[in-house]
């Protein structure tokens, strides 16, 4: 009690923070109960939690048996997987390459420029993508100049994933490499010197020193990434997709957005969202466990 009084200001400071988290994160978690109810517009949120009948797994069953289920799940997983395959290693490679540069100003320039796209709003990025892939856009101009057939990229389901992942690499590669560069900077230079003494070449140093030193960072980030596997950012999807490309572009988050926010299928989409969160959480736990076992690195 004395300690409490002594540090009352600290508790006073913590109060709004905890209230914030409770109100804006934990109350919605209670709202997940809507997934097991039939939401009606008659009541508000609270009313719906208490007044409406419990319907069990009805909405989950509806989702699993809907046409959309297979499509959005496949799309989500594939987009994530491609992201992990292509956009996850890219910053690592960039960081390694940057680290090998001897000319300081060049290194700085490359870094600054590759950071830049990260700061551009997704809306603008999407605008640029739409512009570049349009029939008169840069890419089609090049295709045209080479004598190829112009393609309406954003109208063709076949190209959506490529566009999505490639633009993600383009936008984030520089920024994501910072954390690896920082980790590289923290590597003890004695190790390199010792390796040189032992006759190690450049390649040897990368493989035997830099990469192993980066491994904890890589693993932590990979775990986080896997934990977010089913969370494809909804913004970019809804900015770039359209009914013609739902086939490959519609992911869980965009589906939830469309059905929930736009079509007010509240309970149904809550169920879909809950499914998504649970799978994500399970993936995270698994990845963490696996990582702990194999590389002794883990989040907790």
């Amino acid at each position: 009690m004395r300690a409490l009084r002594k540090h009352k200001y600290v508790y006073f400071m913590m109060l709004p923070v905890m209230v914030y988290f409770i109100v804006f994160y934990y109350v919605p978690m209670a709202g997940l109960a809507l997934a097991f109810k039939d939401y009606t517009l008659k009541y508000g949120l609270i009313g719906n939690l208490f007044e409406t009948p419990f319907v069990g797994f009805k909405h989950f069953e509806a989702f699993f048996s809907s046409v959309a289920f297979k499509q959005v799940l496949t799309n989500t997983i594939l987009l994530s997987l491609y992201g992990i395959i292509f956009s996850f290693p890219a910053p690592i490679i960039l960081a390694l390459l940057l680290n090998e540069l001897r000319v300081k100003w060049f290194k700085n320039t490359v870094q600054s420029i590759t950071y830049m796209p990260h700061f551009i709003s997704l809306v603008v990025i999407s605008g640029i993508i739409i512009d570049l892939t349009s029939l008169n856009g840069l890419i089609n101009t090049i295709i045209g100049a080479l004598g190829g057939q112009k393609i309406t990229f954003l109208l063709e389901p076949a190209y959506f994933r490529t566009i999505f992942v490639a633009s993600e690499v383009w936008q984030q590669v520089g920024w994501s490499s910072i954390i690896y560069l920082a980790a590289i900077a923290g590597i003890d230079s004695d190790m390199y010197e010792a390796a040189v003494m032992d006759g190690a070449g450049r390649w040897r140093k990368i493989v035997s020193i830099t990469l192993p030193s980066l491994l904890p960072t890589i693993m932590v980030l990979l775990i986080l990434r896997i934990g977010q596997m089913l969370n494809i950012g909804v913004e970019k999807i809804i900015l770039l997709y359209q009914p013609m490309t739902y086939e490959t572009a519609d992911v869980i988050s965009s589906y939830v957005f469309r059905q929930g926010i736009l079509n007010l299928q509240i309970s149904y989409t809550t169920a879909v969202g809950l499914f998504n969160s649970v799978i994500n959480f399970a993936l995270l736990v698994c990845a963490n466990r696996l990582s702990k076992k194999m590389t002794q690195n883990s989040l907790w």
Partner: protein
Amino acid sequence: MVAKRSLGDIVFDTVNIVFLTLLVVATLYPCLYVLLASLSEPAEVARAQGLLFIPKKLQLGSYALAFDNPNIISGYINTIVYVGLGTALNLLMTLMGAYGLSRKYLYGRNLFMFVIVFTMFFSGGLIPMYLTYKSLGFYDNMAAMIVPYAINAFYLIILRTFFLTIPDSLEESAKIDGANDFTILFRIMVPLALPAMAVVTLYYAVDNWNTYLRGVIFFAGPRLVSDSGHPARDTDSKRHELAERRHHVGGGGKREVRHDRHRDLADIVRVSVFAALLREGRHDRRREGLRPMDDFKSPSSRYRPVAFWSWNDKLEAAELVRQIREMDEQGWGGFFMHARAGLETPYLSEEWFDCVETCVNEAKSRGMQAWIYDEDTWPSGWAGGLIPRLGEEYREKHLFLAENEIPHHPDDIRMLKIYKANRRYAAEAAYYRDRSSAYRLENIAEITQEEAIREHGDEVILYFYQWTAPLTNPRYRGASYVDLLNPKVAEAFIASTHERYKEAIGAEFGATVPGSFTDDLTVLWNIWGRKKQALPWTTSIPERFIARYGYDLLDCLPQLYFPLEGCERVRIHFHDLVNDLFVESYTKILHEWCERNGLKSTGHLMGGDPIMSYMRHFEYMQVPGDRPSGAGERSAARPAPARQRRLSIRQGRRTLRNVRRGRAKPDDGGPEMDLQLAVPEQRHGADATLVLLFASGGSRKRDHPPNLFYQQPWWGDNRLMADYQARVSYALSQGVRVKDVLVLHVQDSAFAAHTPLRPEAGGLAAKKLEKVLRRLLEARYDFDLGDESILARHGSVEGGRAGGGARTVSLRRHSACADDPREHVDAAGCLHEGRRRRDLFQGEPPAMVDGLPGGGRAYEALLQGALPAGLHHLEALLRSKLPPRIRIEETNGGAAASIYCHQRRVDSGYLYFIINHGRTNAAELLVRIPEQGRLRVMNAENGGGGGSRRCA
């Protein structure tokens, strides 16, 4: 390290630097390109064939335009406010949290930590969050954009970790000096933590600056329409597994149509479950469900399907009468008496007219309709061979281009011009995509016939000549087709055919005989396999051309074929003239005759030619016909003809509404509904499913359309189908169609792009248009199609009420050929239209007006609503300007793209017809209708009125 570098090192460094340089370029150039494009003249960018390095025709107009939009300015102001306020709140909250959590004496700090970290990995998800925030009042206000995002757990942890590195001794000494925790935080911790703070501030600011979803969710909330939907179901009917049959079609060259007639029928049945919804207005609850749909259960014969009855054998009165009885019993409302391949009774003979009379009398006694079909087989106009035999001027003519050698008989041609030129095969090859004509002309010069004989070598001789069809074509019983651009043909045709019918059955005109069908008209259907080089022609064209445009077409013939200077203008003028001639020298004359004699003129044009302006003809038909025939099959190199046809059907139907406003009222129900709605709504219908063969022996069984008559085993059940069609037809004849959008058909763009050497070019415009139309239908926007030339004449009647009321958006596609900027063309006459209403542009502004360059400027005033290319922009804009009248979603969340909706305003409310066009998908729908009142579901399958219930 610097001392000695091995070769490998040098190679590695070089590769590394080159690679990273390329990366920098790849990062920068797209941004640079967008910047350069924004500073350039739009049309120039579109025309540019390579990369941009400097702006093309520097201009700042795009920015001026953007900032003219008040939303841009207010958007920026809001963004700046959110970044300022939001980031301040972010920092305050994060600092407090991070400081508190970094204090080791904080009781329960591990629990607090867990509570915070857990939110990083698990959340309630979008929807519960949305509901919570909204119920707390964070909706549609500024706080909604800021407060719910006050802390980012990840950034909080970063800052906390940093605070942990600051030695406790600092805090202790400050405490001793009497500082409280706030002082410590802001006086000691913050200055020490500045680097970390800077990073976190940057993160927050960037997040706030880039936010998009928050705005979308918390501001662009949907109108909360109560759900008054009725889930429509689609049952899967039994599928008749039948082998596909191929039908070879005579006449049209190597045309091959695949059809599976049983599938068609099965599909129709499948579709039919979709309900018609009748919404009755508030004031009308008392009389619920009575008056407006009196005859829905069993509509009279005028709403029933009318068959194309093929007379194709030796006709016998008794058999004809028997077949009429069959039709009547199985629910058909009438028939067209259609002479067809295999006919043995002489066409237009006494015997023929005896049969016609018999059938008209039989129809009369049964209350059915007997329509005239005005030709022996098809296309119409040659009266079984009588007309072409009247003389050379009556016979079909074409303008031909021949290179070096003339493939036609000298007697059939009349030389117009001869040129010599150098051919250059060049990069242009890609432009043509057709190697055989992949060259460009240079040094083109006119020469005489004698010179043409002398000169050859590497120069090409181009002969432009008029070709007249000789009297040798077996397709036309040894005669030829006729010159429909010559009014004498129409007059002779009417005298030989229509007048004869008048003598025989004139008494029933307007009663049992409602009208006359004219089929597959064409001015460009060359059966000699050299269609590529041909254009429509008649002898009078050169003089008409000079009179109308003031210059000589004969000097510009190469422009019609080759991409020479000024070709767009010449082509537009030429095709415009041809289309007008076609209408005025055939369709209009026929129309006037029918008008005088109490008949309705109907029919359609032969499809497949982008340079035929079908809609102009509809102006002169009392009952505008359905699609141009063959529009689907002709381009059947690609599959999915059904869809194309469906759109063409709509094209026809809508024109009628459009043209006729202020003129004659659209015809009052009647058979046109049969032709245009009942069956084609089921999309496989068109003409194909409607032909009833009189006889099916011999070669007749291979006649093109699938036969649906008594020869079929299921004929006895046909009434089910016919009743369904009649009910739909009846319902859709009630009231007036509700539609808000006028789509202008960009015929001029097709004209300008068309060259017989590359016939697909003009078709691009049509394809784009189809895409737009399909998209509109999928988005549930019903529309009218407008023809520029008709609007130019009747525009004043149209006024500002194209959509019939205040909710009017007219929508134009100026750059129909956006992927080839050379083809941007538009008619100046439409500017006038543009000022009257709000036009929505999509894509680039037109590069040309009336075939002359410089259009972009002229349209600048209209560019307020300019949209970037891409249909989703169009749809989004449309939604914001004109919320859809009805919302249909699949209950399982599908896009419901195959669901079309047709809304009509009837006396007592609204009628909604909802139909699934998908051939493979079933759908369960949630339908939201904005009006209040009583809802009645009508089942077209059994005519039942269904239950009615109130809904709000």
